[in-house]
C-alpha cells in the first residue's frame, strides 16, 4: 500500500528539495484563511486538503481576489463533504500567472521493474486520460535504479516531450530533483501537475503529489509522522489500518474473511459466481492468532451492509485451532450473533479447529464451494425478510 501525502505536505517536501513552489499557508478556519491571504497578497487560491482527485470540479478549489471572496470561499470549502471526505483544512496559495502548464512525474513501472520518468506538455489535466487517449503526448524514460537518473535522461525526456527550448534546462532540473526525491524518500509516485510556466519562463509546481511506499516507512521517519494526518476518509478502512488488515470495502452484503490475498479474492469471486455480492476483501494474513481473528470479525460486523459472513481459512502457517479459538472468543461475547457466520477450515490443524469450533455459534462447511453457497443463502434470506 502507498501512503499519500496531502498537497501541502508534498509541497513542503518538494520545496525542501529545491523544487520551486508558490508561497502558501495552511489554514483551518475562515479567519485563518483571510490572514493567510493577506500575508500572501491577493489573488490567492483556496484549496481543500483532501486525498481525492478532481477537487476543482467538485468545488474544492476557489480563486479569490479580495477578503470578501476569501471569506466566502473559506466558508463554503471548510467543512464541506468532498466525495466522502470531510474538509477540515485548506491551503491558501499565491495565485500564479501562467502561460503554459506541463506535467512531470516519476513512478515505478511495475511491468519493467524500473522507475520511469514522464514529461508532457499536456499538463493541468487528468494525466491518466492523456495517457489513454494520446500516449505519445507523454515522453517516458526508464531509469536504471542502480545508477539513478543521469542528467542526459532528464534532458532527453524533456526534449522528447517537446518542451520549449527556453525552459528545457529548468524543467530538466526539476525532473532530476524529483527523481532524487522519489528515490531518497521511497516514493511510489511523485508528480507535479501542473508544472506552471510563467510569462518570465520560470517554472513552478502548482500542485504536488507524493505517495510513499508504506513498506519503506520504517526508514522515512519524517514522512511516517505525516501519516496520521493523511489517513483515508472511510471509517472502516481507517479501522483496518489500525488493525493492520488488508481490507477493501465493496458494495455487497456478504462479508468475507480469509487468509492470503489470492484465496480471499477467489472467495469474493465465488460469492459472485454463486449469485451473491461481496461486501469486502479482508485478508488476515499468514499465521493469524486468535485475537486477530476476533478483530477481523469485529471489522466485518461493523459494516452495516453485511448480512452474512463467510470465513475461509486454508492453513499453511495459519493454524486451524487458533482460528477456531478466535472465532469462538469473538462470538461468545454476543448475546445474539449479529450476522450468521459460515466457517470453512482446511490445511494445518483443520481437524483440531473443527473440534474446537462452537457449532452453536457458526455454520461449518467442509468445502469452499459449500461454505460460499451457504453464506450467500444466508445473506439472501436476510434480504428477503
Amino acid at each position, binding site marked *: *500500500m502507498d501512503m499519500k501525502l496531502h498537497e501541502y505536505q508534498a509541497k513542503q517536501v518538494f520545496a525542501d528539495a529545491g523544487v520551486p513552489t508558490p508561497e502558501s499557508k495552511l489554514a483551518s478556519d475562515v479567519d485563518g484563511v483571510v490572514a493567510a491571504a493577506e500575508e500572501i497578497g491577493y489573488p490567492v487560491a483556496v484549496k481543500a486538503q483532501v486525498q481525492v482527485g478532481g477537487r476543482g470540479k467538485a468545488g474544492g478549489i476557489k480563486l479569490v481576489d479580495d477578503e470578501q471572496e476569501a471569506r466566502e470561499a473559506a466558508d463554503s470549502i471548510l467543512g464541506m463533504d468532498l466525495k466522502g471526505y470531510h474538509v477540515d483544512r485548506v491551503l491558501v496559495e499565491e495565485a500564479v500567472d501562467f502561460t503554459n502548464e506541463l506535467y512531470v512525474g516519476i513512478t*515505478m513501472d*511495475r*511491468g519493467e*521493474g*524500473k*522507475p520511469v520518468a514522464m514529461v508532457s506538455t499536456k499538463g493541468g489535466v487528468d494525466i*491518466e486520460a492523456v*495517457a*489513454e487517449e494520446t500516449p505519445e503526448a507523454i515522453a517516458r524514460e526508464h531509469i*536504471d*535504479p*542502480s545508477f539513478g537518473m543521469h542528467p542526459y535522461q532528464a534532458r532527453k525526456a524533456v526534449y522528447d516531450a517537446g518542451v520549449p527550448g527556453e525552459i528545457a534546462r529548468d524543467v530538466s532540473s526539476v525532473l532530476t530533483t524529483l527523481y532524487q526525491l522519489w*528515490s531518497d524518500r*521511497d516514493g*511510489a509516485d511523485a508528480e507535479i501537475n501542473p508544472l506552471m510556466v510563467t510569462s518570465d519562463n520560470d517554472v513552478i509546481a502548482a500542485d504536488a503529489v507524493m505517495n510513499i*511506499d508504506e*513498506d*519503506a516507512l*520504517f*526508514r522515512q521517519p519524517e514522512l511516517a509522522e505525516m501519516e496520521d494526518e493523511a489517513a483515508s476518509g472511510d471509517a472502516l478502512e481507517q479501522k483496518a489500518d489500525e488493525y493492520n488488515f*488488508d481490507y*477493501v470495502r*465493496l458494495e455487497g452484503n456478504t462479508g468475507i474473511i*480469509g*487468509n*492470503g*490475498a*489470492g*484465496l*480471499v*479474492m*477467489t472467495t*469474493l*469471486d*465465488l*460469492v*459472485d*459466481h454463486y449469485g451473491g455480492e*461481496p461486501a469486502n*476483501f479482508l*485478508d488476515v494474513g*499468514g499465521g493469524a492468532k486468535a485475537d486477530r481473528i476476533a478483530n477481523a470479525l469485529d471489522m466485518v460486523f461493523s459494516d452495516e451492509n453485511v448480512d452474512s459472513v463467510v470465513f475461509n481459512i*486454508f*492453513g*499453511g*502457517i495459519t493454524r486451524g485451532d487458533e482460528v477456531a479459538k478466535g472465532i469462538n472468543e469473538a462470538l461468545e461475547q454476543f448475546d445474539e450473533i449479529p450476522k450468521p457466520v459460515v466457517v470453512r477450515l*482446511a*490445511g*494445518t490443524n483443520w481437524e483440531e479447529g473443527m473440534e474446537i469450533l462452537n457449532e452453536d455459534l457458526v455454520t461449518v462447511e467442509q468445502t*469452499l*464451494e459449500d461454505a460460499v453457497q451457504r453464506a450467500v443463502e444466508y445473506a439472501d434470506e436476510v434480504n428477503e425478510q
Partner: protein
Amino acid sequence: MSVLVDDDTRVVVQGITGGEGKFHAEQMMEYGTNVVAGAVPGKGGQEVAGVPVYDTVDEAVEVENADTSVIFVPPAFAGDAIFESLDTDLDLAVAITEGIPTQDMARVNKRLTETDTRLIGPNCPGLITPGEAKLGILPGNIFASGDVGLVSRSGTLTYQVVDSLTNRGIGQTTAIGIGGDPIIGTDFVDALELFENDPDTKAIAMCGEIGGEDEEEAAAYIDEHVDTPVAGFIAGRTAPPGKRMGHAGAIVSGSGTGTAESKINALNDAGVPVGDTPEEVADHVESFLE
C-alpha cells in the same frame, strides 16, 4: 523428476535464528529437505535446528556446499539478504519475506540481469517437490508426488488448488509460488519454461490474479512455446479498479489494465481453459491426464 529442487538440494536458511526462520527450517527438515546450514550475521558458530550457523552465506557455501538459500529475513534487511544470496555462488534463492520496499526490489531486479542465481519471490510461499524437498512455508501434507507442475502468484490459493488435485489422486512434480509482489524474480514464463522442459510434467496448472501483465505474457509464451497442456485460474474477477487486493501487485489500474477479463481472454486465446472455481481447474487438469 522435478524442477529446481529435489532431495540433493543443499539449503542454507538466511535468518534461521529468527522465530519464523527456525520454525520453518525445522518444518523443511521434517519434510526431508536437506538443510545444511543457517546464515545470520553475528550468529556464526551457533547451532540452530541441528545445523551450524555462519556469519555469511559465502561461508555456508564454502563449508557446507550449500547451493540454495531460503530467506526468512525481516523486510528492512531482506533486500540486502537477497543481494548477498545473488552475489554468492548459489543456484537458487527463495525469498519468503513479505513487505520488502519496492525500490529495494527494483535494485534486486537489476542485479538479476547480471547473475546466474535464480530468485523465487519475494512474498511467496516457496516451492516444493512432493516427497523430496520443500523450500519455504508450504504445508507439505497436502501435496502428493505426481505429474502436474503448478505455478501460482498466491500462497493459500495454491493450497486450495493442490488440495483439489491431491484429493482426486493427482500429484505434482513441483509446485512453485512465485509471489504476489509487482517485482519478483522467477515469473510465469520462467516457470512455464521449466515445466515444459521437464519430461515428467504432463500437465501444468497456473494460478494468476489481477494486476500487471504477467498472465498475458504467459499466454503469449504458451501459445508459442508450450506443448504441455495448461489449465488456468485467475483470482480477482470481482475486484474494483484502483483498489489493491492484499498483494502489492494485485491491482486493476484506473485505466483498466490488469483486469481478470483481459487475462482470461489472453489465456483462452492461447488455448488455455480457465476455471471459474478451483475445482474447475482440477477438472481441466484431470481431463488432460486421462
